[in-house]
C-alpha cells in the first residue's frame, strides 16, 4: 500500500502539463500534428492515408462502444483467415515444428506430474519455455482433451494432424490473444493517448494499425505461437506504469518473463525505469523495497506449483537418480540428494537450464542480426563459443547502455516506448541465440509509438511502417517454408496500403508544406523498399548459384540487419530528442538546421 501513494500522483501531474496546450485544438478538429486530414484547396478535405478514410465516418460523435467492437471484429476476421493457411511443421515428420511443440507441451503437462515436465524425453520437443507457458499449455490441453482425448494422448499423439485439432489450436491462440493482448493494448492506448493529448479519433486509427501489424499476425496465427500472450502481458505492464501502479507493472512483467524468456529483451529498460522512479527526483526507499518484494513474490508464485510438486516423495526419488543440471552441479554447497531442498533446487535449476539454452550456438539459421551479418564475411565459428558469448554480451551491453542510462535518469513514462524499442533492437542485433521471430519484440514498442503524440504524423508513420514491412520481410524465408507466402504478401501489402506507404502511395514522402521527412530518411526508406522488391524478384525468378544455395536468404538477412541497425539508431535518436529538457522543440530545431 505504501508505495502506491507516491506513485499515484505522478501521471496526473504529467497529464496536466502535457494536455493543457492542446485542449483548445482537440475540441473541434483532430490534432494537426497528426496530419490525418489533407486540405487540398477549396476547403476540400481528404484523408491522408487509406486507414483514415476507413474511419472517416468516425471523426466525431461515434461512440467507442461501436468503433471498438467493429475494429476487434475486423482484425479478428483477418487473424482467423490467416489461420486457415499452413502452420509450422505441417506434414514434416519426424520433428514437425512449433505447432507440434506447443501441442506436445499440452500433451505432456496434462499427463505427467509437474516434476517430470522439464525432464520428460527432452530430445522430442522437451519443454523449454518458462512455467507460465507450461501452465497455459496445461489449461489448453485439459480443455482440448475434454473435446477429443486423442489429440493429446501421451506419446501416441505425437505428430498428430487433424483439421479439427488445427482449428482447436488456432482458436486457443485467438482466445488467448483476445483475453490478454487485445484488452492490454486497448487499455494501454486509451491511457497513453489521453496522457499524450491525442484525439480519440487518432487513437482509433492507431489501434487498427497496431492490431493489424503484419509480423505478429503472421507468426502467431500463421506460423503458430503464443507470442501475443507475452507481448500482451508486457503491454499490460506498461499500462500499469502509465496508471502509476508500479507493483502491478512488476507483476505483469514477471508474467511476461514467465511466459516467454524472450521478454528479457525488455528487462533492462523495465529495471532501469523502476529503479529510476525510486531514485529521481528524490530517493524513495519504501517504493524500492515494495518493488523488490513484489517482484520476488511474483517469481515465487510463478514457480510455486513446480516447486511444491518437487517436494513429493516420488519427485525426490526421481531427482535423486537423475543427471543434475549444470547449474546445480556448480553450486558451491553440497546438498543431500534425498532431501526436499535438493528436490526443490533441482527443479528450479533444471527449469532455468531448460529455459536458457547457453549450450546452443551464437545464432540459428539465418537471422538478420549483426552476428549473422559479420559471419557472412568473416566466419565466426573459428572462435570458441565462450569467447563469442562474451563478445555478444559485451556488444549487447554497449548497445543498450545509453538508453538504459537515459531512462534511469529520466524515468518518464513517455520515454518508455522509444527506450524499449531501442533496447530490444540492441538485443536483437547483438545478443546470443536470436530467432527471426524475435523481431516481434522490438516491433511492438515501436509500433505503439503510432498512438503517441504525433504518432500518425508522416515521420513516425513512415518509420514504424517501414520497420514493420522490413520485419515481416526478413521472416519471409521462414514463412515461405510453411506455405504462408500468400498471407505474407496479403498482410504486409495491406499494412503498407493502409498506412500509406510505397508501393501504394508516395503521399507520405511527398512535400506538402508543413513537417516533412528529411531527405536522408527518404533516401534510406526508398533504397530499402527498392531492395526488398528487387530481392523478391530475384528470389522468385532467379535460381541462386549452385555453390551458394543460400545466397538469397543470406542477402535477406544482410539487408535486414542493416535496416534494423538503422531502426535502432532511429529509436535511440527519438529517445535522446524526447529526453531533452523541454522536449519536442530541440528536435524540431535540429530538424530545421538539417534541412538548411
Amino acid at each position: 500500500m505504501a508505495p502506491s501513494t507516491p506513485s499515484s500522483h505522478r501521471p496526473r501531474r504529467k497529464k496536466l502539463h502535457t494536455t493543457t496546450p492542446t485542449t483548445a485544438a482537440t475540441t473541434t478538429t483532430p490534432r494537426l500534428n497528426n496530419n490525418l486530414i489533407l486540405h487540398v484547396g477549396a476547403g476540400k478535405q481528404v484523408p491522408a492515408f487509406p486507414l483514415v478514410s476507413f474511419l472517416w465516418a468516425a471523426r466525431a460523435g461515434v461512440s467507442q462502444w461501436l468503433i471498438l467492437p467493429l475494429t476487434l471484429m475486423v482484425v479478428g476476421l483477418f487473424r482467423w483467415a490467416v489461420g486457415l493457411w499452413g502452420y509450422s511443421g505441417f506434414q514434416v515428420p519426424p520433428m514437425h515444428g512449433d505447432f507440434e511443440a506447443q501441442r506436445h507441451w499440452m500433451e505432456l503437462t496434462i499427463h505427467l506430474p509437474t516434476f517430470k515436465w522439464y525432464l520428460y524425453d527432452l530430445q522430442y520437443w522437451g519443454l523449454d519455455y518458462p512455467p507460465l507457458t507450461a501452465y497455459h499449455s496445461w489449461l489448453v490441453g485439459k480443455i482440448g482433451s475434454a473435446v477429443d482425448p486423442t489429440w493429446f494422448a501421451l506419446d501416441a499423439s505425437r505428430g498428430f494432424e487433424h483439421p479439427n485439432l488445427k482449428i482447436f489450436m488456432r482458436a486457443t491462440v485467438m482466445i488467448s490473444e483476445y483475453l490478454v493482448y487485445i484488452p492490454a493494448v486497448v487499455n494501454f492506448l486509451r491511457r497513453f493517448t489521453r496522457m499524450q493529448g491525442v484525439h480519440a479519433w487518432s487513437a482509433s486509427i492507431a489501434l487498427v494499425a497496431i492490431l493489424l501489424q503484419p509480423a505478429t499476425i503472421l507468426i502467431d496465427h500463421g506460423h503458430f505461437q503464443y507470442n501475443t500472450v507475452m507481448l500482451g502481458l508486457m503491454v499490460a505492464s506498461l499500462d500499469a506504469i502509465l496508471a502509476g501502479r508500479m507493483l502491478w507493472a512488476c507483476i505483469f512483467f514477471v508474467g511476461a518473463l514467465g511466459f516467454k524468456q524472450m521478454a528479457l529483451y525488455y528487462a533492462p529498460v523495465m529495471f532501469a525505469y523502476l529503479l529510476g522512479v525510486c531514485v529521481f527526483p528524490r530517493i524513495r526507499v519504501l517504493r524500492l523495497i515494495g518493488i523488490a518484494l513484489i517482484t520476488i513474490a511474483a517469481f515465487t508464485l510463478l514457480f510455486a506449483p513446480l516447486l511444491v510438486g518437487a517436494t513429493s516423495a516420488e519427485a525426490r526419488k526421481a531427482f535423486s537418480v537423475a543427471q543434475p543440471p549444470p547449474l546445480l552441479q556448480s553450486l558451491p554447497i553440497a546438498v543431500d540428494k534425498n532431501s526436499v531442498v535438493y528436490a526443490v533446487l533441482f527443479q528450479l535449476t533444471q527449469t532455468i537450464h531448460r529455459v536458457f539454452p547457453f549450450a546452443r550456438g551464437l545464432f540459428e539459421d539465418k537471422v538478420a542480426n549483426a552476428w549473422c551479418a559479420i559471419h557472412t564475411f568473416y566466419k565466426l565459428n573459428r572462435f570458441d563459443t565462450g569467447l563469442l558469448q562474451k563478445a555478444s554480451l559485451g556488444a549487447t551491453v554497449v548497445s543498450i547502455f545509453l538508453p538504459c542510462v537515459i531512462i534511469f535518469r529520466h524515468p518518464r513514462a513517455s520515454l518508455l516506448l522509444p527506450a524499449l524499442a531501442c533496447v530490444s533492437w540492441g538485443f536483437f542485433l547483438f545478443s546470443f541465440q536470436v530467432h527471426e521471430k524475435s523481431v516481434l519484440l522490438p516491433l511492438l514498442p515501436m509500433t505503439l509509438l503510432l498512438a503517441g503524440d504525433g504518432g500518425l504524423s508522416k515521420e513516425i508513420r513512415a518509420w514504424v511502417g517501414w520497420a514493420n514491412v522490413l520485419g515481416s520481410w526478413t521472416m519471409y524465408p521462414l514463412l515461405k517454408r510453411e506455405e504462408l507466402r500468400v498471407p505474407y504478401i496479403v498482410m504486409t501489402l495491406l499494412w503498407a496500403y493502409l498506412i500509406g506507404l510505397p508501393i501504394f502511395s508516395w503521399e507520405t514522402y511527398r512535400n506538402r508544406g508543413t513537417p516533412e521527412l528529411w531527405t536522408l530518411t527518404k533516401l534510406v526508406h526508398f533504397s530499402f523498399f527498392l531492395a526488398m522488391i528487387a530481392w523478391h524478384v530475384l528470389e522468385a525468378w532467379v535460381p541462386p548459384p549452385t555453390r551458394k544455395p543460400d545466397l538469397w536468404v543470406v542477402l535477406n538477412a544482410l539487408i535486414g540487419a542493416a535496416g534494423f541497425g538503422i531502426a535502432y539508431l532511429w529509436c535511440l535518436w527519438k529517445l535522446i530528442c524526447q529526453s531533452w529538457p523541454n522536449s519536442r522543440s530541440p528536435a524540431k530545431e535540429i530538424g530545421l538546421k538539417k534541412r538548411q
Partner: protein
Amino acid sequence: MTDLYPSLAQCALVAAAFKVLLFPAYKSTDFEVHRNWLALTYSLPVKEWYYERTSEWTLDYPPFFAAFEWLLAQAAAYADPAMLVVKNLDYDSWQTVYFQRATVILTELVLVYALSRFVKSTPLPNKQAAHVASLSILLSPGLFIIDHIHFQYNGFMYGVLILSIVLARKQSTLLYSGILFAVLLCMKHIYLYLSLAYFVYLLRAYCLDPRSILRPRFGNIFKLGVCVLGVFGIAFGPFAQWGQLLQLKDRLFPFSRGLCHAYWAPNMWAMYSFTDRALIPLAPRLGLPVNQEALTSVTRGLVGDTSFAILPEVTKEHTFLLTFVFQLIPLIKLWFRPDWDTFVGAITLCGYASFLFGWHVHEKAVLLIIIPFSLIALKDRRYFSAFRPLAVAGHVSLFPLLFTAAEFPLKIVYTVLWLVLFLFVFDRVAPVPERPRIFVFDRLALFYLVVSIPLMVYCSLLHQVIFGLERLQFLPLMFMSSYSAVGVVGSWMGFLVVYFTA
C-alpha cells in the same frame, strides 16, 4: 459531398485482400461444378456442351454463362491444364483453387463498376445514402458466404443486374438496360423471376409514350425488339439450329426436383411444411385425416416429391399461380407510375414473390430480394424499417450453407459485423419519411431482431450441448428457416405497405 469515404475502390481492395486469404477455406460442390464446366467448355465442341454427362454436375446454365466459362478456361489453361480435363472429377490442385477463387474476385469488379455508376447516377442530396448502400452491397455477407467461401459467381452477375437497373434510370439508356438484362437472362435464368418487372417497365416507359398509353413509340419498340431478340438469337440460335432446344430446356429447368430444397429456404413453403409437421402430433385430437404415406416417407418431403401428412399437397401449378399473382400486384402500380424508384420496388417485390412462393427455391435466391432492395432501402426510414428484418433473416438463413468448423467464426463474425455496421449507418443516413411510420411494425421489427441472438446461440452452440452432434439435427435448421421465413414474410408485407402508400 466530401463524405464519400471510404471509397468503393478502397473497400474493394481491402475486401479483396481478405478474400484472397480465404483461398484455402471450405468450398462446396459448386466449386467442382464450375471446374467441370471449365473443362467441358474448353475441351468439347459447342454442340456437345449440353449433352456431356461424365460428371453428375452437368451444364445447367444458359449459353452465355457457358461462354463465360469458356473464356475463363482459356486463361485456366495457363494456370493448370489438368483442371480442364473432363475426366478429372473432383480435381482441386492448388493452382485450380487459386485460379477459380481469383476469377470470382476479379469478375466481381463488374459489381464495383456497377455500384460506382449507381452512386454517380444518384442526385446530390441522396449521394451519401447511395454510397452507403453500394458499400453494403459490395461487402454483403451474402456474396461473401456464397461467392467467396461456398463458391459461385453471383457478384459478377448481380453486377450486371445492377448495371442494367442503373441504366434504366435515364430515358436515354433504357435500351441498353433492356439489352443488358437480356444478356443477364442468357447467363443465369434465375433472373427470369424479375423479368416481368422489366417487361412492364420497358413497355410502359420505353415503348409507349409516357403521357398516354395509347400512343406507342414504334421506333423504340423496333429497336428494343430487335436487340432483345438478337441477344436471345445469339445465345440460343446455334442450339436451335442443331435442334437442341428441348435438351437445353430439360437441362435448364429440371422439374423433377421437389417443392423445397434439401435445406428449407425461408419461404412460405417452409412455414407450410413446418405447420404440417407441427400438426402431426395434434391430428388425432383435432380429428384430421393423416396421410400415412407421408409419415413413412424417408425424405419427409425434403427432397424429391414433397408429401404432406395433413395439409393439402402443393403442385407446381399452384406455386406458379401464386408467384404470378403476387408478382402482378406490384406491377399494376408500376404500370401506372413508371418511375425508377417504383421500378426498383417492383423488381424487389417480384423477387419476393418468387422467393416466397416459387418451386424448389434455393436459399441463395434471397439475394434476388436483398440486392435490389438495398438500392432503395435508404429512400427513407419506412423503406429502411422494412429492409431491416430482411437483412437479418436473409443473411442468417444463409448460415447452413457453411457447416464446417473452420468457417463457422468467419460467417458469424462477418455477418454480425455487417449487420451492426450497416444497420447503424443506415439508421443515421436514412431520411425521415414524409408519411408517418407504423409504430407497431417498428416495434415488432425490433423484437424480431432481438430474438435472433438467443436463436443463433441455441442453433450454433446450445443444441449440440443439449442433444449432442447426432440427435435431432434437423431441429436447429427448422428453427432457423422458420425464424427467417417469418422475417422475410414480415419484411415483404411491410414493404408492400410502403410500396403502395409511397
